[in-house]
């Protein structure tokens, strides 16, 4: 399941990287997770998400179709990260933490879903001329 989710994230990386190394990236991620075990899985996922923000999001922002949801995602991810740190620092109870994070988590999932749906749609589709319509 984790490898499948990572495979979806790989779809947002630059096309040449995805084409040449996409399969290997998922394979390496899978092996890393397997070797890290349950305890190390959080570390592996955290690194994968940091890489996503650092390498894939700029690529999405460069694509006019994905720009708005990518900026939304970056903003929401930052907001969620801050919430997590604050809640952790305050020693919040698990139930409270979950309730507080639910809206922010949703706000990350929605732009991500929009980006995934639009990822391979060329810009020209959005700018059809009257004759093309």
């Amino acid at each position, binding site marked *: 399941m984790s490898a499948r989710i990572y495979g979806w994230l790989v779809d947002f*990386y630059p096309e*040449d*990287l995805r084409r*040449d*190394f996409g*399969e*290997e*990236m*998922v*394979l*390496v*991620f899978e*092996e*890393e997770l397997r070797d890290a075990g349950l305890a190390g899985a959080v570390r*592996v996922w955290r*690194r*994968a998400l*940091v*890489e*996503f923000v650092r*390498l*894939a999001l700029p690529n999405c922002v460069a694509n006019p179709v994905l720009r708005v949801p990518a900026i939304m995602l970056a903003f929401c991810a930052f907001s969620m990260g801050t919430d997590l740190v604050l809640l952790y620092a305050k020693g919040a109870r698990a139930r409270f933490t979950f309730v507080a994070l639910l809206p922010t988590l949703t706000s990350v999932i929605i732009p991500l879903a929009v980006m995934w749906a639009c990822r391979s749609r060329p810009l020209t589709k959005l700018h059809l001329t009257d004759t093309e319509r």
Partner: protein
Amino acid sequence: MPPSDQPLQPATFWILFALATGDKHGYAIMRETRQLSDGQFEMGPATLYTTIQRLLDSAWIEEVSGPNDGDQRRRYYRLAKAGKSALQSEMKRMESLVRKSKALRLWPMESKS
């Protein structure tokens, strides 16, 4: 790629260093870098393959065929002549830094106890 007098990026340096010990596939490179750096340097698959892509383009590393009985999805990489030379330049630069810091009595650092 930076000119030879410029420090290498950490991911570039560790990948070249890992490949200096022999041909490896992606995940083996990742494990070797972790071991060589005593766990101080870690990278994920995206950093690994972005750097590998750049190194292949600059002919610092090359793709080679792996063992016949291995996983066919894996690709193996080897340090090329240009990569070896870049790695040696980086090592020399580091050696020079350590030598200078020793001459200035900055190394080894004195512990404050």
